């Protein structure tokens, strides 16, 4: 029995309880994310200064979590795109759209904060090195995904799913690019070797971003599901 069929066959009281429990959980989740984001600047201010970059290094506590959230969004987009392409799951398609849009948003955050960091640390706003260039290409793929879904018309779902899978496959190469090629960007060894006094605030910020990511994903999937329902209703009415 599918989840929907199970819900429909459940007594009305149980259905209402499940809905209100979901609503309460969502509210608690939203409050937790808001509190964590509000507390983040204080937590970051308490972290020690890095020896060479001093205050500037504090961008790290929002910059890297943005990329972690992008990684999570991209994983959702890639897996859901594959599920939609090979098993034709409509719900997976809703997750893929939500994942791609969120990945594009977090990507913009990561690129902007990285550019600000680079201006002070490297003296330039942008450097055409392997990691940065590949990341920009990924961001363009994600923006293309969103545009294809918005303006592509009927049938664009399959094309977008292919793009989503392609974009996701590039992520491990971007992550390892700093170890494989000569680049000005710090290596992947930075995070595992963080001091405990820096690791705590970093984990706090990463958790805040992941919490926000799950919240936004839930909202966005809900929006996409409602839109699909509305389209079906319009079609039924016209038929």
């Amino acid at each position: 029995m599918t989840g929907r069929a199970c819900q429909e066959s459940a007594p009305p009281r149980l259905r209402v309880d499940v809905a209100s429990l979901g609503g309460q959980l969502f509210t608690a989740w939203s409050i937790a994310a808001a509190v964590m984001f509000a507390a983040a600047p204080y937590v970051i201010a308490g972290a020690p200064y890095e020896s060479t970059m001093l205050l500037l290094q504090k961008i790290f506590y929002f910059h890297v979590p943005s990329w972690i959230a992008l990684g999570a969004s991209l994983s959702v987009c890639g897996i859901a795109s594959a599920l939609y392409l090979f098993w034709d799951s409509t719900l997976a398609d809703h997750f893929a759209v939500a994942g791609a849009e969120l990945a594009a948003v977090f990507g913009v955050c990561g690129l902007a904060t990285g550019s600000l960091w680079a201006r002070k640390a490297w003296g330039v706003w942008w450097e055409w090195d392997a990691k940065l260039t590949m990341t920009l290409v990924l961001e363009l793929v994600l923006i293309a995904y969103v545009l294809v879904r918005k303006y592509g018309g009927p049938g664009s779902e399959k094309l977008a799913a292919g793009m989503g899978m392609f974009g996701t496959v590039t992520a491990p190469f971007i992550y390892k690019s700093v170890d494989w090629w000569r680049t000005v960007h710090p290596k992947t060894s930075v995070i595992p070797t963080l001091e405990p006094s820096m690791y705590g605030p970093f984990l706090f910020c990463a958790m805040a971003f992941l919490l926000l990511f799950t919240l936004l994903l839930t909202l966005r999937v809900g929006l996409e599901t409602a839109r699909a329902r509305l389209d079906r209703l319009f079609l039924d009415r016209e038929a």
Partner: protein
Amino acid sequence: MIRRASTAVLLLFVALPVLAAQLPTGQPPPGQEGYVPISQLPPSQQLPAAPFVMAAYAFIWVALIAYLWSIWRRMRMLAEEMERLERLAPRGK
């Protein structure tokens, strides 16, 4: 007409390197004689870190709030569409 245009293009290609060679070239800047510590630079040439850190955090906040607002706006539009559909639907259905 085509012959004249192709002759002009050919002439341009031949003339360009000659013209470029005659352009005055700027002198390269003199070699740096020593490093200057950042603390000895005048304040106008120093790049303080605080504005960059603030700008980075502000950007994240603005971007995420704008995205949340866009989701809220789309939800509201969807609700309006749903209401419109309900109004259009014949009564008793």
